């Protein structure tokens, strides 16, 4: 008997926008026990609720906002939430974790999961107060950016309310549209904002005064104290992220020669100093603005002579900076503000622009596209053009002219121009700021990522470049298949409890298990937790297999596999990728096509979920 006695109200609100109905459902204990919550629960529900082949932007797709057992219990870095849906950018399972305080507000509204189905006839928003929800008219908000939308909704509801909304990009179903909360926190990757836009759902407003229930408060407090102690003393969470925020990584990753520059043609950006965390702090930092209840405090309010906002984060500085060959940090900051206001994923946006820059420099663009660019910029697109990243990010938000083409994402755009090899992506999701040619473990974890080219589902950079929990040989493939699995499975649980990934710089699997176990009142060791993570990873894999993904999708762009760097500290190293992929499948108990074996599926209690494998042969 799987019982859960804390961390949840066990309440799922099902909102059907086609019918205009709201129903409250009880979440079974067994689901919470086996999938924890957040991403894990969302992935399982997604698998169960939508059939294979569902168009992500159709009425049949669902969109979920989920909390975890740790949401609202006052543990550090845990007041986050997760959004899960089928990604329109990748066609895979899509899920994002976001900071801010929306997660805590959703929980305090007495709701663990908000599941949205159907499609509204006209723009609407959902208002959730203590245990009840309403669907309200948002026609007057359609077309407004995320900041305007947030300000308006705060003014007519409660100033303390949590608001998640889309901007013009989501409304226009741009495939890399985000869902923003507190104006600047993004559920960023995979275009879930477009799903929200397809449902004509402009925003979700949440507020309430419910407290997350726990059975043994003293035990929970004790486990939280331990978290605080370890997070308070780990070098990355105690000093570095607090001092510089995530931009601290610019110089570190560049130093190792793993900082992709000019659309992954180089691994070192010679102007890294001008976009570094130090420069960022000296010239544009205004104040720290931590997520709710977070002692790490990595988020920053920034200001330029013309504008004020939040961020950018390291990945954004990289994507608009080094990846586009741009060394003007102020332009990067403005491009970031543009994306936040429009609701666009900055990693995908910078990647798409860098891809377009290379297509342009190589003469692969059509004359029509070239004319569109000339109309926007007055000249051809080239690496290093700081003005271009600002103008193009704006155009992407409006989905106008060449901006509309960029909004397709790097992969679709490069395909459109007949040169898919120029797009740096996995499964359609643009790659992050860590070049696997100098971080060989990242090669396998990026390639096998269920949501595509994303670093946040298994941050092996932590050990390969940041020596946390300890350093390993970044040029070797030895042991990396197993470590990729370890990080993937653990991260699946961190996203499911729902905690910030940065806590893993300080906490071991066992410390996570202790807190989650005490909150949910279940027996849980670090090993048990990792097994749950494996189940979550596998249900996501099954979702993708059911969608027709194969071994061929678990790969990297040819450039990364075949062209070693010619300079920098990662010069000359080549990834032995296919043997590493074979090893990874073996470690996971999958066959050489990446299909989970019967024994493994039985071990994870996923036999019925995998029945389609037999029928599809």
């Amino acid at each position: 008997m799987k019982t859960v006695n804390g961390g949840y109200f066990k309440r799922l609100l099902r909102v059907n926008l086609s019918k205009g109905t709201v129903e409250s459902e009880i979440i079974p204990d067994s689901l919470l026990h086996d999938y924890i919550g957040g991403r894990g629960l969302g992935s399982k529900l997604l698998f169960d609720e939508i059939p294979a082949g569902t168009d992500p932007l159709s009425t049949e797709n669902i969109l979920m906002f989920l909390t975890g057992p740790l949401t609202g219990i006052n543990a550090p870095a845990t007041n986050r939430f997760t959004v899960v849906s089928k990604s329109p950018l990748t066609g895979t399972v899509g899920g994002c974790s976001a900071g801010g305080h929306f997660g805590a507000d959703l929980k305090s509204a007495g709701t663990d999961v908000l599941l949205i189905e159907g499609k509204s006839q006209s723009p609407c928003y959902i208002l959730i107060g203590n245990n009840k929800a309403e669907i309200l008219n948002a026609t007057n908000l359609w077309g407004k950016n995320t900041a305007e939308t947030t300000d308006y909704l705060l003014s007519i509801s409660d100033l303390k309310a949590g608001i998640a909304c889309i901007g013009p990009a989501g409304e226009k179903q741009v495939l890399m549209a985000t869902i923003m909360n507190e104006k600047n926190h993004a559920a960023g990757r995979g275009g879930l904002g477009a799903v929200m836009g397809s449902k004509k759902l402009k925003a979700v407003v949440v507020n309430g005064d419910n407290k997350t229930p726990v059975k043994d408060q003293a035990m929970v407090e004790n486990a939280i104290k331990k978290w605080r102690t370890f997070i308070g003393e780990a070098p990355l969470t105690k000093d570095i992220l607090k001092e510089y925020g995530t931009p601290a990584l610019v110089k570190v990753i560049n130093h190792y020669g793993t900082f992709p520059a000019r659309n992954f043609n180089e691994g070192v950006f010679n102007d890294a100093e001008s976009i570094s965390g130090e420069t960022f702090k000296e010239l544009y930092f205004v104040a720290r603005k931590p997520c709710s209840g977070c002692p790490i405090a990595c988020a920053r309010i920034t200001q330029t002579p013309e504008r004020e906002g939040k961020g950018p984060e390291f990945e954004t500085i990289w994507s608009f900076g080094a990846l586009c060959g741009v060394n003007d940090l102020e332009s990067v900051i403005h491009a970031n503000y543009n994306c936040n206001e429009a609701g666009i994923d900055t990693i995908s946006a910078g990647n798409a622009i860098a891809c377009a820059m290379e297509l342009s420099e190589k003469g692969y663009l059509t004359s029509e596209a070239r004319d569109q660019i000339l109309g926007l910029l007055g000249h051809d697109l080239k690496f290093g053009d700081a003005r271009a990243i600002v103008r193009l990010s704006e155009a992407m938000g409006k989905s106008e002219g060449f901006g509309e083409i960029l909004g397709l994402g790097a992969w679709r755009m490069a395909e459109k121009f007949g040169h898919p090899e120029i797009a740096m992506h996995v499964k359609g999701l643009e790659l992050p700021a860590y070049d696997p040619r100098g971080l060989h473990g990242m090669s396998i974890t990026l390639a096998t990522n269920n949501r595509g080219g994303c670093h946040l589902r298994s941050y092996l950079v932590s050990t390969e470049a940041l020596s946390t929990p300890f350093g390993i040989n970044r040029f070797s493939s030895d042991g990396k298949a197993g470590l990729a699995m370890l990080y993937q499975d653990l991260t699946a649980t961190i996203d499911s409890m729902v905690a910030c990934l940065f806590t893993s710089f300080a906490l071991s699997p066992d410390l996570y298990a202790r807190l989650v176990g005490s909150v949910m009142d279940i027996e849980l060791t670090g090993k048990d937790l990792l097994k749950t993570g494996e189940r979550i990873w596998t249900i996501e894999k099954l979702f993708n297999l059911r969608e027709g993904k194969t071994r061929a999708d678990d790969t990297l762009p040819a450039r990364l596999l075949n062209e070693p760097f010619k300079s920098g500290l990662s010069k000359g190293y080549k990834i032995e990728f296919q043997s590493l992929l074979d090893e990874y499948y073996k470690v996971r108990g999958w066959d050489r096509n990446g299909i989970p074996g019967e024994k493994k599926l039985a071990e994870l209690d996923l036999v019925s979920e995998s029945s389609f494998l037999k029928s599809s042969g």
Partner: protein
Amino acid sequence: MDQNSSENAPLVVFDRIKLHEIVVAFTPERIAAFLDVTDLKADTQAPKISKMADWAITFGCASVCVNPVEVDILPALLKGSAVKECYVIDFPLGKLDIGMKAALTTDVVRKSHENRSEGKGLIELDMVINVGRFKKDPGYTLEEINAVCEAAGGEHVKVIVRSSELTEKELYKVSEVVASSKAHFIKNSTGMDAYGATPEHIRIMREVVGDHIGVKAAGGISDAMFCMRLFYAGASHPKLQTPDLFRIGTSQPLNIMSSMAWLLHNTDDWIDAGVIPCTICPYNQTGKLRVEIREESNNFCRNCRHKEFRKHKEF
């Protein structure tokens, strides 16, 4: 055997089975018992000392290692626990004369006993030798070690030899001197030297002192895998794996415990993933060294089977 032959490369590669055996013999709780929780910085203040004492008591660490001035607060913080006080003597340069070293030791021991009032055996002294004098006259070193041991009145003395400032031959020699003295431990570094602990130096020290005195590794030790490699080098046999015979000095005890827990998941993968050999080799660390030591290091590198990694000095 020729010290420079590839067969005699420094200890930078580890037998996976042997290392595995060492790793699985530990838990976060067990490794804590080997840690001297250390902060010897110039600007350390009372709240930090208090925090260190709290960690050491909570997690069962071996000692709290501080500068002698803290003897007015540390004994009270540790009173009632089994955690030892550890004071550094003539830190970090070791340039006081023998009489001053002894006098300082006597004073610290007396004050500790007065303030803690729990009798003997709860205090340790980590003394720094005069490396300059040692290079000319190892007998001087034996004399100063024994003088401090006498002054300590039976309390345990660890001898910091500042191995980064010694040639390999000198490291062998100084280890012999410590082994023949009344000291209870040999320790490689102050943590403020040209470089800190390396498995190779810990291996040499253990090779010379045998199993009748302890070896303490210190300097830059902040994670469990590093600790395991040091155990491999200096305490691979289970009988040496006691806090009386092996110790780790660290300012990062929590990180070590947390990473120990990580290491127990996918242990073999972590071991297989290895480390870039030069990053843990004493002969790679040439930046701040005297010419004769730098030349010796370069000579080792030229003949080392791992020299391809030296293409990039910073990896």
